[in-house]
């Protein structure tokens, strides 16, 4: 299938690694901690250590590094924008001028900051894609459901959200396949999807989207009926075939992540003082 190559969301790479075996809840918690750390870290020494830590996790997870870096492709444009904007419009007054072109000035400080913020973006993407690469969608939704379960009393529809995610994931490939089929059918009737300006291309998509929506609604209707016929009545009374269970390794992994995150946030001067 052609379209699935471009959809990296929720891509899962099955391996028999210690990272894969972790409970999804501890992985979600670890990712949350790391995300906070990414924002708290103040200097490059912290990002250096974070990178080492992530490399360690990647090695342990047996995910090819190339795969992980390919996950950066969708944010490449955002990354470039961030770099350009931060270099030229940082608002940093003074500093060492690296080069000047009329009113456009790039200072050493601004470039460093742009790289810093750019790397922050990269780190965020790497951390979250490590989660999706090592956790199957089923486990991920189970984990989210279990994490949200205590908030049910507050009206959080934990089970319903998880069920919606599962169904969405189940039907992404089905709907992609269907999109492709409709596009080919329209192309056979002379439709053009790859030529013309943006407006024309967008207009060309209307005859694809309309049948797609109609069929998606029909599918939803039939699925609801099939679920009812299989005695589905929401989260109550429902048990699970695989209940999540926290193991000692989860505690170890989470403790390691939290400890490491504290280390990342130690400012560089403190390191200097400590190592002297």
């Amino acid at each position, binding site marked *: 299938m052609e379209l699935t190559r471009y959809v990296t969301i929720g891509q899962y790479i099955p391996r028999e690694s210690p990272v894969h075996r972790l409970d999804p809840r501890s992985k979600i918690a670890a990712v949350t901690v790391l995300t906070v750390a990414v924002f708290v870290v103040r200097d490059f020494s912290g990002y250096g250590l974070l990178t080492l830590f992530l490399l360690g996790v990647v090695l342990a997870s047996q995910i090819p590094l190339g795969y992980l870096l390919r996950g950066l492709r969708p944010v490449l444009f955002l990354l470039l924008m961030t770099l350009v904007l931060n270099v030229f419009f940082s608002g940093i007054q003074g500093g060492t001028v690296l080069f000047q072109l009329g009113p456009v000035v790039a200072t050493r400080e601004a470039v460093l900051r742009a790289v810093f913020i750019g790397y922050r973006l990269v780190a965020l993407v790497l951390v979250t894609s490590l989660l999706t690469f090592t956790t*199957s*969608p*089923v486990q991920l939704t189970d984990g989210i459901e279990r994490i949200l379960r205590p908030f049910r009393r507050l009206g959080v529809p934990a089970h319903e959200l998880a069920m919606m995610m*599962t*169904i969405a*994931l*189940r039907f992404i*490939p*089905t709907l992609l*396949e269907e999109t492709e089929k409709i596009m080919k059918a329209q192309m056979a009737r002379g439709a053009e999807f790859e030529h013309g300006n943006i407006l024309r291309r967008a207009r060309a998509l209307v005859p694809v989207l309309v049948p797609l929506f109609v069929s998606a609604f*029909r*599918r939803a209707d*039939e*699925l609801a*009926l*099939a*679920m*009812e*016929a*299989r*005695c*589905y*009545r929401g989260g109550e*009374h*429902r*048990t*699970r*075939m*695989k*209940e999540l269970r926290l193991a000692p390794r989860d505690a170890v992994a989470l403790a390691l992540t939290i400890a490491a995150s504290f280390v990342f946030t130690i400012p560089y001067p403190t390191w200097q003082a400590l190592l002297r």
Partner: protein
Amino acid sequence: MPPLIETRNLRHVYHAGTADAVMALDGISLTVDRGEFVAIVGGNGSGKSTLAKHLNALLLPTEGEVFVDGMNTRDRGALWEIRQRVGMIFQNPDNQLVATVVEEDVAFGPENLGLPAAEIVARVDEALRVVEMAEYRQHEPHLLSGGQKQRVAIAGILAMRPQCLLLDEATTMLDPQGQREVMETIQRLNRDGVTVIHITHAMEEAVQCPRVIVLADGRVALDGPPAEVFSRVEELERFRLVLPPIPALAHRLRRDGLPIPEGILHVEELAGALTRLVAEGAGRGRAGDGTH
């Protein structure tokens, strides 16, 4: 013991009380006993699917009653027991699989029944083995063939331990290979004691079922063994139903004057009848030679 399924003068009107009111079922009374293998055939709009949805309380009668194992489908308290007893397979295999992994999907029904985890695992194992899909338990459903998806759907129902398997045109969207897979699976299940109600418009499938019910305009038009039902050629034509190939051929030969007995369903029977005819003809021919 009450019959497994009984409908009494069942009527269903869609959009009742409005200008678009359509009478889909018009007084259907039938019973299906435990262990039966019933085909329900009928043209488009004959009410097949509407009838199916009444048998596990997805629809409730406008008039009349439906009983499943003695329970009235109008009884809200018995709803889940009824749906557990009569498991339904739908036409589009894609639109009835819920989970992203085969075994998770098979577990969906038992999970809804609130069974303990160990029991669910045992049932999933067994159900996948019965439909011969055990080696695909970790697969993603969208990568399976139509027939395989439909077998997974059947496993999902079997894991709920139903007494009756209700297939609503479950073979219509499949290729011949997939149709054969599903037919073989449900025939095997029926031999093991599961009641099967197979709604289809493939006549060559109906021929293989010991009892055939023909619906027309929301009524039971014919109900009997296939040999009897498929000899009522004129009536079937009136309901715009096409005879299965072998009975159709037998009928044409009979109409052309060959003395072929009624009730022929399968190739072997027709071949046997024709061989006998040829042998008789030859015998008569030799006898004739002797006199002249």
